[in-house]
């Protein structure tokens, strides 16, 4: 077991180094060749060549690359992601509240999509080819096929904006000015938990739909597989009710796999998340990253990319280790 853990952590460490090298290369070295080098941005547009050189000296930008990288890593370890010259404040100050916002969005959506997918998927696995199963699979495949950047504006329009004009789906059946859901906005959890949740309902649903669809299918397949195994038949033969079998045995056995997927998905959810963030004006990582790209704010772009990648690696590592811990059968198979 210990070797597994060590190996996995070692792998994670290599990944972290690779990520930071790549991100650093991309934005500190390559940017020099695209004519937007950091020293020039810091010095300002009307700076003379002499001033730029001076800035480079002060900020250590003319040291050999490997030295710059080490300094960069040193800062990173101490939580210093650099300084944004566009917003004139440390990048970590920009990233931390953005991370909280994105985490609120993704984790909340994850809870919702699991709650939707688990019962539907399990039912489908228990009663394959039944009407319920077919409906569930149809919903799932439809949900998978809807792009999130289409869904988000549609949901915002039909459930956020139209009610305020007294309509639902085009039919004028409400009072003018009814607000069912806020159209845009984000309230920090610390400020007001109720408002925080209220403003996140539509975004959660938007994000959850696509993932719920995929999870319905996973859970269905996994449940069906487990139910076909000998031990469930044995349990049933011994007189256990279906529900008991489901929860105690099947649930426990598919939990590790679902957790692995969940970890991977939460990490990759950042892709779809920023369409949702832009439409609902949630100042999260995706939105911050996109604005930073538009403003050529390299430290923030690098910070967002590194942070996202680190979170992904962290989650994958934790989940892999948990998987190994929870499922002794797989420990040997996943040996690397």
């Amino acid at each position, binding site marked *: 077991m210990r070797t597994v853990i060590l190996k996995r952590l070692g792998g994670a460490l290599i990944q972290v180094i690779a*990520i930071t090298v790549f991100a650093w290369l*991309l934005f500190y070295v390559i940017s020099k060749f695209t004519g937007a080098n950091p020293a020039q941005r810091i010095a300002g547009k009307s700076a003379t060549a002499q001033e730029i050189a001076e800035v480079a000296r002060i900020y250590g930008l003319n040291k050999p690359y490997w030295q710059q990288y080490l300094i960069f890593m040193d800062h990173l370890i101490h939580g210093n992601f650099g300084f944004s010259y566009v917003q004139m404040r440390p990048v970590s100050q920009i990233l931390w509240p953005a991370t909280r916002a994105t985490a609120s969005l993704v984790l909340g959506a994850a809870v919702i999509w699991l709650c939707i997918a688990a019962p539907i998927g399990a039912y489908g696995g228990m009663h394959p080819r039944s009407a319920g199963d077919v409906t569930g699979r149809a919903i799932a495949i439809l949900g998978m*096929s809807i792009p999130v*950047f289409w869904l988000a504006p549609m949901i915002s329009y039909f459930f956020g904006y139209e009610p305020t004009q007294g309509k639902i789906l085009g039919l004028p059946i409400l009072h003018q000015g009814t607000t069912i859901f806020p159209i845009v906005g984000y309230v920090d959890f610390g400020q007001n938990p109720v408002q925080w949740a209220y403003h996140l309902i539509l975004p959660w649903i938007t994000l959850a739909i696509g993932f719920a669809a*995929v999870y319905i299918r996973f859970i269905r397949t996994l449940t069906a597989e487990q139910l076909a195994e000998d031990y469930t038949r044995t349990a049933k033969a011994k007189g256990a009710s279906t529900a008991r079998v489901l929860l105690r045995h099947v649930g426990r056995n598919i939990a590790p796999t679902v957790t692995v*997927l969940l970890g991977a*998905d939460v990490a990759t959810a950042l892709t779809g998340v920023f369409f949702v963030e832009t439409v609902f004006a949630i100042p999260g990582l995706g939105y911050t990253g996109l604005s930073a*790209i538009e403003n050529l704010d390299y430290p923030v772009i690098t910070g967002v990319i590194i942070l996202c*990648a680190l979170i992904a690696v962290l989650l994958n590592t934790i989940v892999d280790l948990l998987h190994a811990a929870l499922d002794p059968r797989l420990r040997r198979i996943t040996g*690397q």
Partner: protein
Amino acid sequence: MTSSMQSIDLDQGSPQGSGQPAGLRATALRRLRRDPVAIFAFSLLVLLVLAALFGGPLAAHLTGHGPNQQFPNALASDSQPLGVMQRTYYPNGTVHNPHGSLFILGADELGRDVLVRVLYGARISLLVATSATAIAVVIGITLGLLAGYLGGWVDAVVNRMTETAMAFPNLLLAVGLAVVVGPGLLNVVIIIALFTWYYPARIVRGTTIATKQMTYVAAARTVGARPRRILLVHLLPQVWGPLLVYATSIIANNIIFEAGLSYLGVGVPPPTASWGQMLSDAVTSGMYQTDITLALAPGLALVLTMLAFNLLGDSLRDALTPGGR
């Protein structure tokens, strides 16, 4: 763009397609022919390809509207575009056309025919997605074969590389790259391929490892067959099966990826019609609120396309699983 791709990892455990007997392929085809869902999905895809190849020019010829042709008279003086099944009697400015020039799905805010653009958009979606997938598959096969066959540290390195690459927020990086590199059809294809090669790589690696353990490969080694021969003659053919199944997912993923990039303004440059671009125009300008068709047309096109690919992929997977569903 996400979980459906993770499922590729999940299914690595089940031995689909690796070392499958020839008989399974025939069985698979038979199953597919009998599966109504597969037939439906396949027909939908055929329709899509037909639309991409001929639909655009046909519609353009019938309506007299090119895909990038702007008709200022399809806009009212306050810039409201024509709606569904409306027509303008002065399509070319001053000459009165007594039959009127019909816009079946209405016009967009530059006075272009929405239906014609949706049909031409199918070309872009398919073209970009398939070329990007092709490039990604080539890269993926190369790396996957090498990693799977050579094993050891090569495998470890490639494995770590793919895992690391997958950890990056790919859309953000793609947008960043696109901003630096500039717009262009080729650029979009290359960027998409750069962020998709890991899926085929993982599949190929898995299949290669499983096949490597088959006895006939060991036999070939004993006999002294050169590695290249083993790779090309024994391992490569086995790889196509699973790749095909997941090709549908990968292409679907790339269609959405291209649409997403176009939506963010860094995809296929205007005035070429692209579903993502059309959607972006409709949504970010708010035009969809006055005329929902502008968002529904490209959106539904995307949904239908994705549906077709997903259904087909499902049916293929079911058909190729020994023992049936």
